[in-house]
């Protein structure tokens, strides 16, 4: 079977204010199989969001190859990023219109995913009327509604309280079991990665440093001690890698806004 995502020698450099350029992604190679749940684990600033932006087509300035062959991309951001002036349902419609999903399928798609996330009753609510966890669920529904071949998720649960996050993680796994989407999930939470993923790639300083398959059978329980042990091993491996790398961050400390700047660049490039 063809891989859903293929990345070869992907390089991305940012020009600093002083004219020097810094590599944020250093010759990445990556292949994600169809239906695979891949977690990319790394500290903030390691380049994982940049990688997702390239895969999502938000960032088109890079060297090397990045090919997504499994069709449309669904994206779940760290924040829900719902349009506050639209109701829950109108927010879904906005994405469905953008992705040109035939109107005849809208009802079925919306009902299905709203039901899966327990949001069926909230179609007419505005984002400010629902909780943060519900808003993020709604964002997940929006990403699923457009029938993506691939789901990209950028630390989607890091802004939620732990109990809500746990519940949504479990929901995510059951949705994944039913739909078999290819998922690339970026996180800095080792436990989360071990609970969710088939395979974990540890990213540090713009490069993959460590690869690990998660041997735990599904369905998994969040309290499984095996997950805890695995995450401990993972953090150990991680520490070892950091020890080898004196400067673990690809993004220099004096430019913490670099990741956010990407969004700004993306908007600027629209020339509006």
């Amino acid at each position, binding site marked *: 079977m063809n891989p859903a995502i293929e990345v070869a020698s992907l390089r991305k450099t940012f020009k600093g204010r002083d004219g020097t350029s810094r590599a944020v992604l250093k010759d990445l190679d990556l292949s994600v199989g169809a239906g695979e749940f891949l977690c990319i684990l790394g500290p903030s600033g390691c380049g994982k969001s940049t990688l997702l932006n390239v895969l999502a087509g*938000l960032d088109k300035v890079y060297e090397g190859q990045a090919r997504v062959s499994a069709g449309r991309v669904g994206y779940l951001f760290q924040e829900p990023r719902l349009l506050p002036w639209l109701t829950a349902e109108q927010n879904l419609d906005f994405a469905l*219109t953008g*992705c040109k999903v035939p109107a005849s399928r809208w009802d079925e798609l919306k009902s299905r995913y709203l039901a899966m996330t327990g949001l069926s009753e909230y179609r007419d609510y505005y984002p400010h009327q629902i909780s943060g966890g519900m808003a993020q669920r709604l964002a997940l529904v929006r990403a699923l509604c457009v029938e993506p071949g691939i789901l990209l998720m950028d630390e989607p649960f890091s802004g939620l309280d732990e109990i809500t996050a746990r519940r949504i993680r479990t929901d995510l796994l059951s949705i994944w079991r039913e739909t078999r989407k290819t998922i690339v999930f970026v996180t800095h939470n080792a436990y989360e990665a071990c609970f969710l993923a088939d395979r974990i790639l540890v990213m540090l300083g713009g490069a993959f440093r460590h690869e690990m398959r998660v041997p735990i059978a599904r369905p998994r329980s969040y309290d499984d001690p095996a997950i805890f042990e695995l995450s401990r091993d993972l953090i150990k491996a991680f520490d070892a890698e950091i020890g080898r790398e004196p400067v673990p961050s690809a993004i220099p400390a004096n430019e913490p806004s670099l990741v956010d700047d990407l969004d700004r660049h993306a908007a600027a490039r629209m020339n509006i």
Partner: protein
Amino acid sequence: MLKLVSFVSAVIIWGLLSLTLPPEIFPGPIETARTLWGEIVKGDLWTDLAMTMLRVVAGLLLALILGVPVGVLMGLNRRAEAVLDVWVMIGLTVPSLCYAIMAFMWFGLNESAAILAIAVTAAPSITINIWEGVKNVDTKLVAMARVFEASRPAIVRRVLMPQIFPYVMASARFGLGIIWKITVLVELIGRPNGVGFKLFYWYQLADMRQVLAWTLLFTIIMLLIELVILKPIERRIFAWRPQVAV
């Protein structure tokens, strides 16, 4: 309720203050209202009022047409911001009386010159408002829209406009406040009718009852516009916003 109490106490304070001076110099609210009623009954105040309203509305529209695009441009483009910054500052600094004098001297004592002077005075403040608004546009939402393949017109209409619109609304209200004041001034120096003309006319005759009657009329009209037109529009457009309970 609180609004009513506050309104009534304003009238009472006016009444008390007016007692400190003879009524022909500082008439109280009752006397002023009676004078105003007399003018209304006579009926020729409507022409002046209508002319002033025309100038205000035309001036506001032209000010928005001039001010909003410049503000949007400055918010989106760093270079435009750098170039236009100084212009806006100059525009803001020049006194409105100067604009009025220049407009009348260059374009003659006519309606277009008056409206132009009004619009040019108000435009820089509107520009600054919009400029701030556009700078605050949430680019994360734009990135979201692009991920979901929204077309450029859709992004402008559904993502950018709703963010900029509150600032347009605010600058329209704010601009209106400025424009009322300039219009009176412009009418005073260069128009043969309007509220400003009347105020000046009664001032020259030293008839303070009439001066205050016209001021009162003006204030009532302005409050009505705020309460009957602008507030309901705002409430409708921003229905999605959370109600802030204080």
